[in-house]
């Protein structure tokens, strides 16, 4: 089976999809929203997995899916009743199936014991089927025993002479079987002589084209054994009169008779060479695929190739911007065509990059699909009941992001199940359905992906959280916090209000780590809740981690990149807009609000930067946790897409810097981590809880950047 092993990966990938389908349909069955096709779809999924498993010899998988399929077959035919209990068993079976597929994919030990046990349970139910199911013996490979004469054992290699009487009935032709082909097949077994019997052939006028009138007596000399002879006729046995005798009287050649191939005759005499030509033509034609209407909706590509493509296009973007930069220095009036050409190049490069990035976009479905099982396992362990509703699983993000969202989502769902959802009794007492609902949704918004995990549990106990925070010294005693500020406390390190830190979600990995990781990706996470009604975690992430939009700025003679998503606007403040606090900190007044100023050069200990904001520029930025800030820079160089390069591959994290990019001149420019800078300088517009009144102008927590005004390049030159 070497030839087909190349399809192993295709098969395993297909299994993933089938398992997801299985999950979806089983959920429908469980929820009572199943349609009549549901059981059929479930059956087909398991059936396909089994078929492939057989091709690649995944024995345990074959055996288990065989039992699973048998039960499903009986269920869909109504021979076995589908009860809620049995549906749960089906879920378990699908989990085991998934594990077996996983083991086959990794080449690791399959969970044979668990599978066998469950298989027995499945078989037990199958055996209760109303009508006795077919005796399915695994080795009914061929219908070997429809035979007439008993198998006579021959010495291997002994040539025997068979006399075959073959009289097809009309039925045979209705099945599009072709006697000529059968006779040809016999020829491959040995020497053949054919005698046609025309006795039943009527006059031309009386011939009914669909009727069968001819018969043949075929003499075959072969050492192949009777089974092989019979096999030639395996499809047509019921549609003809077939007698196979062994002609003991085999002296020499049998009576000579007309060797007439009544059907197509000598037409294919030169068959051999025709075939070769056909082969060659087929090979050439193979490149031009398929017949009319062969529609190709998708192709599979190695991820490596796509990654390489993305990298190459990234380098192309860098080179192109380098050319553009160089062109800036050229006298533009003289080289209009050239500069125009470069502008076109820039446009095309940008388009190319967008297209290439789009290739890597994948629906979040692959991550979402793992969650139902997670919910099942956790609710089992906790004795709670919950169902998972997913929305927007077709929403796409870059592959680099997909891999990163699985852990945070898992963590937050566990959190909801563990702390958010009440036990069934408590829920019912509160007038809620015993089954909790967790809604996992994804959508695009403002160039980012927004993922919500919402539960209808008890919500966050604000007073308990506040008390805990006070205990920990995170909040000044006596300070009053708004509900959303309290909710944000959950992301403080080591925070847990659970009396017992359960194994599920409190294993030392708190929400603080989740937040840190998400922020490391340029994302944000927050939580909001309504006591008694539920909690909702919201996570936003950029659509891709490979490139981003950035503003190139200069501070202290050195270039930096500010992520565009953080930028609100840029401005050159008037002298009077800049105010000084007694501490020496400075604020800039913008439309009635006061924002703290952060000098980039100072934060990075760079000398020679513009000291006076009114002579430099202030980029107003906003971050998730630290609110707004005005970044003081020397100048703005412009906005562009930058390819994100890791600093941490070969070095350590640098506070205030999230990653780096390579500018057109080939030099590295750090990408600023605004929130990191704010932390470093301890600047924020949302001061630590308890000091709410300190800054004039009040404190407003903004949750989203409603509009981002992009500075126009020419404005500042």
């Amino acid at each position, binding site marked *: 089976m070497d030839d087909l092993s190349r399809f192993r990966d295709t098969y395993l990938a297909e299994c993933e999809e089938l398992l997801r389908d299985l999950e979806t349909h089983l959920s429908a069955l469980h929820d009572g929203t199943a349609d009549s096709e549901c059981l059929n779809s479930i059956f087909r999924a398991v059936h396909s997995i089994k078929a492939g498993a057989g091709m690649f010899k995944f024995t345990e998988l074959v055996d288990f899916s065989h039992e699973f399929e048998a039960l499903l077959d009986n269920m869909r035919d109504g021979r076995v009743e589908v009860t809620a209990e049995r549906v749960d068993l089906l879920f378990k079976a699908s989990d085991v199936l998934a594990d077996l597929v996983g083991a086959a994919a990794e080449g690791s030990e399959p969970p044979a014991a668990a599978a066998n046990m469950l298989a027995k349970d499945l078989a037990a139910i199958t055996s209760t089927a109303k009508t006795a199911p077919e005796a399915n013996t695994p080795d009914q490979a061929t219908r070997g025993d429809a035979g007439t004469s008993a198998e006579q054992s021959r010495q291997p290699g002994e040539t025997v002479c068979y006399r075959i009487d073959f009289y097809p009935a009309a039925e045979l032709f209705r099945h599009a079987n072709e006697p000529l082909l059968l006779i040809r097949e016999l020829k491959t077994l040995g020497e053949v002589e054919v005698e046609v019997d025309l006795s039943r052939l009527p006059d031309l006028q009386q011939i009914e084209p669909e009727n069968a009138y001819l018969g043949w007596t075929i003499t075959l000399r072969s050492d192949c054994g009777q089974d092989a002879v019979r096999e030639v006729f395996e499809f047509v046995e019921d549609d003809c009169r077939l007698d196979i005798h062994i002609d003991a009287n085999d002296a020499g050649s049998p009576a000579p008779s007309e060797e007439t191939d009544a059907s197509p005759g000598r037409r294919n005499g030169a068959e051999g060479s025709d075939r070769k030509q056909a082969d060659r033509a087929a090979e050439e034609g193979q490149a031009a695929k398929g017949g009319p209407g062969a529609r190709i909706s998708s192709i599979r590509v190695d991820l490596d190739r796509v990654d390489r493509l993305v990298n190459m296009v990234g380098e192309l973007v860098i080179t192109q911007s380098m050319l553009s930069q160089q062109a800036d220095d050229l006298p533009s009036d003289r080289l209009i065509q050239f500069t125009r050409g470069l502008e076109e190049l820039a446009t095309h490069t940008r388009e190319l990059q967008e297209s290439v990035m789009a290739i890597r976009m994948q629906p979040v479905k692959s991550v979402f699909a793992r969650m139902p099982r997670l919910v099942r396992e956790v609710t089992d362990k906790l004795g709670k009941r919950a169902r998972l509703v997913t929305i927007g699983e077709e929403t796409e993000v870059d592959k680099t992001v997909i891999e990163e969202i699985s852990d945070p989502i898992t963590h937050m769902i566990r959190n909801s199940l563990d702390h958010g959802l009440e036990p069934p009794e408590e829920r019912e007492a509160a007038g809620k359905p015993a089954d909790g609902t967790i809604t996992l949704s994804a959508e695009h918004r403002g160039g980012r992906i927004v993922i919500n995990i919402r539960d209808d549990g008890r919500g966050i106990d604000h007073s308990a959280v506040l008390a805990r925070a006070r205990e920990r010294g995170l909040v000044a005693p006596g300070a009053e916090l708004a509900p959303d500020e309290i909710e944000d406390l959950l992301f403080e390190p080591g925070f847990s209000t659970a009396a017992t830190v359960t194994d599920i979600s409190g294993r030392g990995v708190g929400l603080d780590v989740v937040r840190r990781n998400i922020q490391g990706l340029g994302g944000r996470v927050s939580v909001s809740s309504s006591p008694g009604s539920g909690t909702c975690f919201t996570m936003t992430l950029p659509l891709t981690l490979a490139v981003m939009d950035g503003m190139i700025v200069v501070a202290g003679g050195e270039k930096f990149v500010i992520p565009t998503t953080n930028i609100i606007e840029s401005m050159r403040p008037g002298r009077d807009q800049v105010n000084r606090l007694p501490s020496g900190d400075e604020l800039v007044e913008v439309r009635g609000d006061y924002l703290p100023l952060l000098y980039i050069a100072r934060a990075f200990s760079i000398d020679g930067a513009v000291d006076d904001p009114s002579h430099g520029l202030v980029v107003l930025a906003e971050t998730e946790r630290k609110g707004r800030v005005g970044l003081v820079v020397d100048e703005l160089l412009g906005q562009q897409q930058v390819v994100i*390069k890791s*600093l941490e591959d*070969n*070095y350590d994290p640098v506070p205030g810097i999230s990653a780096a990019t*390579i500018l057109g001149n080939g030099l590295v420019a750090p990408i600023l981590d605004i929130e990191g800078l704010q932390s470093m300088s301890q600047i924020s517009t949302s001061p630590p809880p308890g000091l709410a009144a300190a800054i004039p102008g009040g404190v407003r927590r903004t949750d989203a950047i409603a509009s981002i005004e992009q500075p126009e390049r020419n404005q500042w030159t």
Partner: protein
Amino acid sequence: MDLSSTTDPTDRPAPTTAGDGESGSGATERQSVGEPLQFVTFTVAEEAYAVDIMQVREIKAWSEVTRLPNQPEHMRGVLNLRGVIVPIFDLRCRFGSGLTDATATHVVVIVAVADRVVGILVDAVSDILTVSAEQIRPVPEMETRGDKDFLKGLATSDDRMVAILRLDALFDLNELAADGTPESAGTAAEQ
């Protein structure tokens, strides 16, 4: 000079065990004692040093680097090595002799250390030194404990002492982030 063509890029750096008993850290015997070992030698502040040739990826002339803020003095910055960001460490500064006044005649040796690729700024690169394991002498116990930890041994070339560096100890990057002065780095390495 690009040595990467002579070294197999997939080779993991294999610290030599050199029979001096000082190598530690579970390094496996790469070759039986007696087989010759090769090093790239270079000078920093008039002293000669060497690194295992298997760890050297590339040698290039000094070019402008981008400083990263608030890093130890000997961390000169990062540079773009064909699309990969690589940190460059000033060895002269690391050894306490002040910052290199780097020009295009200075050399950066790109090395692979653990899973990372970093560059070290040196004055000039000399020959490739080939010695046998027995010819490498252990570093004697000295007053300042620091040195011993990032030296693997001492060799002799043309009557000059060549100190063989243990790159992984020299660039235990976590420890550098803390302070970065050679003394503290040395003490940290002792833990």
